């Protein structure tokens, strides 16, 4: 039995088609990345899978239960983290987490232990008795992730959870999700960040304007990607001469400074070649980033 079976799912809000004929299947322990730009329908699909929204067309089964009819039967096993923190600003981190823990019927001792463990994992223990309203966006997001993980769900529905997280916290999140996946937790992870495909997904569903553009294993989808923009940041400025040299082989331009160069590539497989050439030019690479803005192009070319 699949954890999620969605067949020809459609969703309409008055005159707007938010989703059109989406199909996906997710087995136990699998992670699927919903990849798409703003307005692609990722959040709507997550809300349908959590039982919050009804479908306008098609059928959705989660743990074998038909949604939204049997939504109450799955809520114990599912945890949904929306695009907002969904935390109460006037309550402390502890009170926020305890509030949700009780609604998931967690044993009090276990809940308290789990809250401490999760906050420690995301390096947020020091905020436990602070009101959420006083916290930074990144810390709020960490607490929101802790909330989503608190009930030890069998299915995690996450809407851009790495938004506002610093690179260290993002890495912890990815490690935590990979660990959960190994333990049999199924995950649906919506993102606009292409790099997250490599870090957590087994499967991916590419969405654009509510339509399914591609669906399948991550490797297969990645090979289909076209027109990728990669930003390489170096320790020292790159001279015009070096940039011209790169320009002979690739389409390049400076990024925000002369320590950042943006390469427009035809294929995603070209990235290792670019990195090799930059290294060969005696430039010390600090980081390699996919540019978020390029996702529209990627999806239209996929």
């Amino acid at each position, binding site marked *: 039995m699949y954890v999620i079976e969605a067949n020809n799912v459609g969703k309409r*809000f008055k005159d707007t088609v938010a989703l059109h004929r989406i199909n996906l299947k997710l087995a136990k322990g699998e992670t699927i990345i919903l990849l798409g730009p703003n307005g692609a329908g990722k959040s709507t699909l997550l809300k349908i899978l*959590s*039982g*919050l*929204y009804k479908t306008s067309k098609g059928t959705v089964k989660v743990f074998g239960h038909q949604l*939204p009819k049997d939504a109450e039967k799955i809520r*114990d096993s599912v945890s949904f983290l929306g695009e907002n923190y969904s935390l109460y600003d*006037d309550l402390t981190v502890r*009170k926020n987490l305890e509030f949700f823990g*009780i609604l998931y019927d967690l044993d009090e001792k276990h809940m308290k232990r789990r809250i401490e463990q999760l906050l420690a994992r995301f390096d947020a223990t020091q905020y436990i008795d602070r009101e959420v309203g006083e916290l930074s966006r990144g810390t709020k997001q960490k607490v929101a992730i802790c909330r989503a993980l608190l009930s030890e769900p069998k299915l995690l529905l996450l809407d851009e959870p790495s938004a506002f997280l610093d690179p260290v916290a993002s890495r912890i999140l990815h490690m935590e999700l990979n660990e959960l996946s190994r333990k049999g937790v199924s995950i649906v992870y919506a993102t606009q960040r292409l790099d997250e495909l490599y870090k957590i997904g087994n499967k991916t569903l590419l969405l654009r304007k509510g339509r399914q553009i591609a669906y399948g294993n991550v490797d297969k989808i990645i090979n289909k990607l076209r027109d990728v923009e990669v930003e390489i940041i170096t320790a020292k400025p790159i001279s015009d001469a070096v940039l011209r040299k790169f320009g002979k082989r690739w389409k390049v331009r400076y990024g925000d400074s002369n320590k950042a160069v943006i390469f427009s590539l035809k294929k995603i497989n070209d990235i290792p070649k670019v990195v090799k050439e930059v290294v060969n030019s005696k430039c010390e690479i600090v980081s390699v980033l996919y540019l978020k803005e390029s996702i529209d192009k990627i999806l239209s070319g996929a």
Partner: protein
Amino acid sequence: MNRKHIIDIAMKDLREAFSSISIWGPMIGIPLFFAIVLPAFTVYISKYAGPALLTQILGVAAQTRGISSYELAKSDFIKFFAINILGPIFLTMPIITATVIAADSFAGEKERKTAEALMSTPATDSELLVGKTLASFIPAVGLTVVIFVIYALITNYFSMASYGVTIFPNIVWYMMLVNSPFLALTTIGLIVLVSSRVKNIKEAQQISSLLVLPILVIPFISVFNIATLNFWFLFDMMICLIISSAFVLYISLKFFDRERFIVA
């Protein structure tokens, strides 16, 4: 229904409401002001008002009670005023107090962007509704009882000091007290229903005020001489309020829709 879920939701709402002085300040301050100032003012009028004004007020009071004005003494005036005129004002306390928190119940979750997380928890529709209702009901009724007692004590103090008589407790006072939870429940039920179907707190407050207006008239029935505020009137009113609060809660539950609540 899971009692733990209900208490958890209610306690969370109460913690949120009482974390801000801008919410609990007026909610407690205004009734308290009326409980202290109004009785003192009544005694002041009865003692120091000029004969013309007092005769006029006594005339109106006597007319309302169907007797001639000379049958009313000054002490009768304060009694009449305390029970028939001010009593109903205090009957509106549960309505006013409940409106503040109830309007925030669901609309506030949406405005603070916490609705999706709450709606995706295992809490059932009935647990959510009952929890939210309870969060408004507890302070509304609690405050009403406290204010009624303070009002009665202060009125008694002034009337004892001025005329050597006590006014409270009496059967009408008890019945008003008994009515207040049901009055609060009907009001809260209506406002929670509205709050779950609007975009924000402001909209919830505006629509709620309109809906609550007919309920606000009930306490003033005796003031306008439509009926006498006695045991049987208040008993009938209580039965009506029990039925209407049950009906409102039933309707709220029947029409509660998580998607509509989030999308609205």
